[in-house]
């Protein structure tokens, strides 16, 4: 079931020294909808995610999240509004335990900037929230291991668990399947499918099997521009998309 539009992007641009990485991109994502963005390497997909999460300032355009203009907000403020993101390159605290990674994420919901005294591990709400997030990605039994000791696939799961611990309404997932084996990938696809029920997800992914399995809506980007947007079946039948893909890379839809 899909709800209202939670994210509305209009005319978003990002130029790096005259080169447009993201060029006049418009799209919207609804709650309960999984919106996948695909395109050849260098199409500007990761840049798009960075613009939406606030890691990069856009050159122009507008981003409305729940009808609020967030274009000027820094990443931490966007996180508090309900936007969570994962990174293409695994981006977790390798030296911390798995639980601590998530606990820290949960702690951010109750900023204790001036709490310099009580032991961080004595806040049961946050520990609970962290454990729930770990359970959601099936990492509960690894809670006390150091993140460094996890397999690549498990680290990717932890990355998502950290997002979940902040209870986001919109998840921006940047190639969550990158570098995973078939079995790990299938587990991750199932996980993302489950997450999409109650949230909005913007997914950037190269694995076309996974994309067509998961996506409700597809946006195809080429050279920073949106080439086409539509239901998976429409995109599959789109001649322009086929020729763009065949013309610029070897990937097959």
């Amino acid at each position: 079931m899909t709800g209202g539009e939670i994210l509305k992007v209009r005319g978003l641009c990002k130029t790096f020294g005259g080169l447009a990485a993201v060029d006049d991109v418009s799209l919207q994502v609804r709650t309960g909808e999984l919106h996948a963005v695909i395109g050849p390497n260098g199409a500007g997909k990761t840049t798009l995610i960075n613009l939406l999460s606030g890691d990069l300032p856009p050159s122009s355009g507008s981003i409305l999240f729940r009808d609020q203009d967030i274009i000027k907000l820094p990443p931490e403020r966007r996180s508090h509004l309900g936007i969570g993101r994962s990174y293409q390159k695994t981006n977790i605290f390798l030296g911390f335990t798995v639980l601590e990674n998530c606990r820290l994420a949960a702690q951010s919901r109750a900023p204790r900037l001036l709490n310099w005294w009580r032991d961080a591990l004595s806040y049961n709400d946050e520990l609970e929230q962290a454990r729930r997030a770990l359970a959601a990605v099936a990492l509960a039994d690894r809670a006390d291991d150091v993140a460094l000791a996890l397999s690549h696939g498990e680290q990717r799961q932890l990355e998502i668990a950290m997002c979940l611990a902040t209870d986001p309404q919109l998840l921006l997932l940047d190639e969550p399947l990158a570098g995973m084996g078939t079995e790990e990938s299938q587990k991750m696809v199932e996980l993302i499918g489950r997450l999409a029920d109650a949230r909005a997800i913007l997914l950037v992914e190269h694995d076309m099997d996974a994309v067509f399995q998961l996506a409700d809506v597809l946006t195809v980007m080429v050279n920073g521009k949106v080439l086409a947007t539509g239901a998976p079946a429409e995109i599959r039948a789109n001649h322009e998309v086929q020729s763009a893909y065949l013309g610029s890379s070897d990937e097959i839809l």
Partner: protein
Amino acid sequence: MIPISLPRTALLAALLAIVLFPLIGATFYVQLGAKIMIMAIFALSLDLLVGHTGLVSLGQAAYFGVAAYVLALISPQYEAANLWLTLPAAMAVAAVAALIIGFLVVRTAGVYFIMVTLAFAQMLYSVFHDTKLGGGSDGIYIYVRPELNIAGFKPLDLENPMQFYYFVLILLAVVYAFLNRVLHAPFGRALAGIRLNEQRMRSIGFPVFSYKLGAFVLAGALAGLAGYLAACQFGFVNPDILAWQQSGVVLMMVILGGMGRLHGAVLGAFSYVLLQEVFSAPALLGAYAKHWQLVMGSLIVMIVLVFPHGIGGFLDIVLRRISYRPPSSARTDGT
């Protein structure tokens, strides 16, 4: 936190030695001990930034010096100042200086942060050196040490070297315990996250700027405590106490002892002051003793080149060797 790599018995013996030392040591060494502990507090304050938040500040002496000047400026000339008023005042001024400077420097990162903290510290140095505010380059004398007075009762006489030693020891223990708690509290955990990965901390919703600024101000206040005590001990202040060399020395201590671990900062202060005493002893180096910084500088260069993973790593290896001695040798040591 008790360092895991140090055997508990050795630690207890060390603690006991520190507590009992003034009873047997000559006054000169008791004063040296107090100086080491003051520098240890100073090093702890910097370790909070360098080792625990990942902020390499090269201007920590500024807050140390500002607090020392506050004591000198508000002390009455011929009678003792009230410690309960002057100590909080000195720390508060140091904290405010850290807040104002921190507000500007925490926007920068990496090399910029190093240069900018150094530059602002130099600005404060210029203020005290060039203007008449703090007696110019001659500085100010503090003829009488502050008085610790609890409702007419004086538990410690700070003029007495032994009692001053214990006073500093108590404060060092308090600062150590306090920082230990802070680092395990939510605030400290967030700092640890910032040190490892600032970008990730922001994307999970931490206002990193405020946390860094908080750490900067806390470190400034603690450096101020050390500066206040140093002014008490030496009885005078001049611009050199906030010169950039002082900031370099305290950074050296933090790294020497192994940053990111509180006991490392204490150990670093201890090693550095002792090395300085040895290198500057005329008995050892004769006429070259006054050029002791030549030896110290060469040692620093050697250490950085020979131990590419940092001195902390080197010290870890040494400590591990000590703590994993075969049982037989441990027993002979115990007797």
